[in-house]
């Protein structure tokens, strides 16, 4: 029972960042019909941006975090502008392969510049954990959970409460009609990709200090994000949020009670199972594209 409570807390922390990853991917997938294979590389980018800002530039931890987020936003806008905009009329396989190429360049570039040795990002939080009876919560994990929930809330507000969000939702439903109604669809695509990238980067920047930063950290993150999107259904932000937490619980409980070696297999097994049983995702309302 005590162990279970500890697992639940760990799963909540993990689930927050998974949800960030999943929301970013599902936005891009849903609105642009692009399978973003740079998502893992952007997660890694966030980790290294945090490292550069906090260690190399010596910025305050709480300043470095928004810096990493904005850096992700800019890189995402750049990728969309240079690679995806010219391919707007291409089929989904072509954009997928171009994104794989871009992901390879980003990951190998990181390895080339920073080397394969893991980097640690120091945090200003006390090392001594908070203890509630048998459950111990580290301050940094608690902060990661709060920051992730805050970012999810901001994204919800952006999508549901702002003019940009309304334009994004209109583009998701029917980009031709949205375009006729005066929505600048090109701009919406750039904004969508930039926001999705910023969320992936933020997830990397949040989890980087918890673990360590390595050039390969994005590999698994990317496929987990795919699992979350498939679990939650295409283009559904609430689906991605719930999916992120479900995956985190499955991993945490699976690792705790079944086998820790297969922890990372949970995401893939979920993907395969969901697509075979209910290919539209567990929470999908939207029609499936592709």
């Amino acid at each position, binding site marked *: 029972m005590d162990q279970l409570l500890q697992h639940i807390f760990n799963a909540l922390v993990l689930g927050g960042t998974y949800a960030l990853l999943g929301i970013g991917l599902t936005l891009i*997938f849903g609105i642009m019909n692009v*399978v973003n294979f740079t998502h893992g590389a952007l997660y890694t980018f966030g980790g290294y941006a945090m490292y550069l800002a906090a260690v190399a530039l010596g910025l305050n931890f709480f300043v470095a975090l928004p810096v990493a987020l904005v850096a992700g936003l800019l890189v995402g806008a750049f990728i969309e502008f240079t*690679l995806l905009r*010219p*391919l707007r009329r*291409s089929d*989904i*396989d*072509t954009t*997928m*392969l*171009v994104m*794989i*190429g*871009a*992901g*390879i*360049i980003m*990951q*190998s*570039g990181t*390895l*080339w510049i920073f080397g394969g040795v893991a980097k640690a990002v120091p945090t200003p939080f006390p090392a001594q954990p908070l203890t509630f009876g048998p459950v111990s919560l580290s301050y940094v994990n608690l902060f990661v959970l709060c920051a992730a929930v805050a970012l999810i809330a901001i994204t919800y507000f952006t999508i549901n409460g702002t003019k940009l969000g309304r334009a994004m939702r209109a583009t998701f439903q029917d980009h031709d009609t949205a375009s006729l109604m005066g929505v600048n669809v090109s701009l919406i695509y750039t904004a969508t990709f930039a926001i999705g990238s910023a969320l992936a980067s933020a997830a990397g920047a949040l989890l980087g200090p918890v673990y360590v930063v390595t050039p390969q950290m994005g*590999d698994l993150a990317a*496929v987990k994000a*795919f*699992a979350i999107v*498939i679990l939650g259904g295409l283009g559904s932000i609430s689906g991605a949020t719930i999916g992120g937490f479900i995956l985190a619980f499955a991993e945490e409980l699976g690792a705790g009670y079944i*086998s820790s*070696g*297969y922890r*990372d*297999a949970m*995401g*893939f*097994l979920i*993907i*395969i199972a969901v*697509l*075979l049983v209910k*290919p539209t995702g567990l929470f999908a309302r939207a029609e*499936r*594209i*592709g």
Partner: protein
Amino acid sequence: MTRFIAPLFLVVFALLPLGLTDPYLLNALIITGILTICAMSLNLLLGFTGQLSLGHVAFFGIGAYVSALTALGFDVSLPFGLRVTHEGGAPLLGFLLAILITGLAGYLIGRLSFRVRGAYFVIVTISFAEVVRLVALNWVELTQGPLALTAIPNMVLPVPGLGDVALRSKMQNYYLVLAVAVASYLLIARLVASRFGRAMRGLKENESLALSLGINATRTLTVAATISAAMAGAAGSLYAHYIRIIDPDVFLFSYTVTMVIMVVSGGKGTLAGPLVGGILFGLLPVALRPVMAPEAQWIVYGAILIAILFLMPRGIVPALEGLGERIAARRKAGDKPTDVMPAKMGANP
């Protein structure tokens, strides 16, 4: 013009080792040949049926493990007190079993994953490869996990008059890979030209139309996946008996990416495409090795992949074909001056 590519390659690569003794280059050629077989098999799915499978490395890795374990033997305990022991056998048996078992795996995965299309199919195939990699990493009793399977014997072939010959030298392995590559090419060429090949292309061009003509989509795609997987399994077996040590890294996504780059750059859906792409990208590391680090090489591959998709989206071989046709058309236009067009227009008002 492009139909001469395959015979030309065969002549060049059959004669090449006669003038080539550098073991490093010979090794690079063998690995290139193995990856080119994988690229040819991937092309069957990606090029001819239009299904982007990004889990192809799974079949390569399964083939390598099946073949190695058949030769080395194993002793595993399963749930319910079952225990499977195998003494170790002939590498040739491993090669045949690798083909059989990867074919079966391809069939099963095909049956499951062809229920979805597009991005969903891609993600299922990636997930499958990752699950297999994690099993190879964690089922230590069978696979030795990250400790790797070592001292895998070389391939042994029965040769009439000489008895069993172990292929120890690089030269022998080179010709073995070449022979399997030629067999794979001929099989694919035969398949594509058959009624089955037309069904595959029909599905790629217009699935609804193909269905209305009575083509069984799932069956056609599953058969293609089975053959494609078995071929990749054969390549994996060759790899295991040549390299003689395999670990779960044979399942890395970067191998799939290499195969995809080979197919897409050469020209998907063409017979010669994977050969051109395979040799180009198999030998590019040899050319780049003296000038740059491996990480930098991967940056170049990524950039080439993007550049090809932007500049020659159909690949090198179709681009050459297009060039050949344009030259032929210009020559024809040179023979008969300009009055061809107006005459035609006059005939059909």
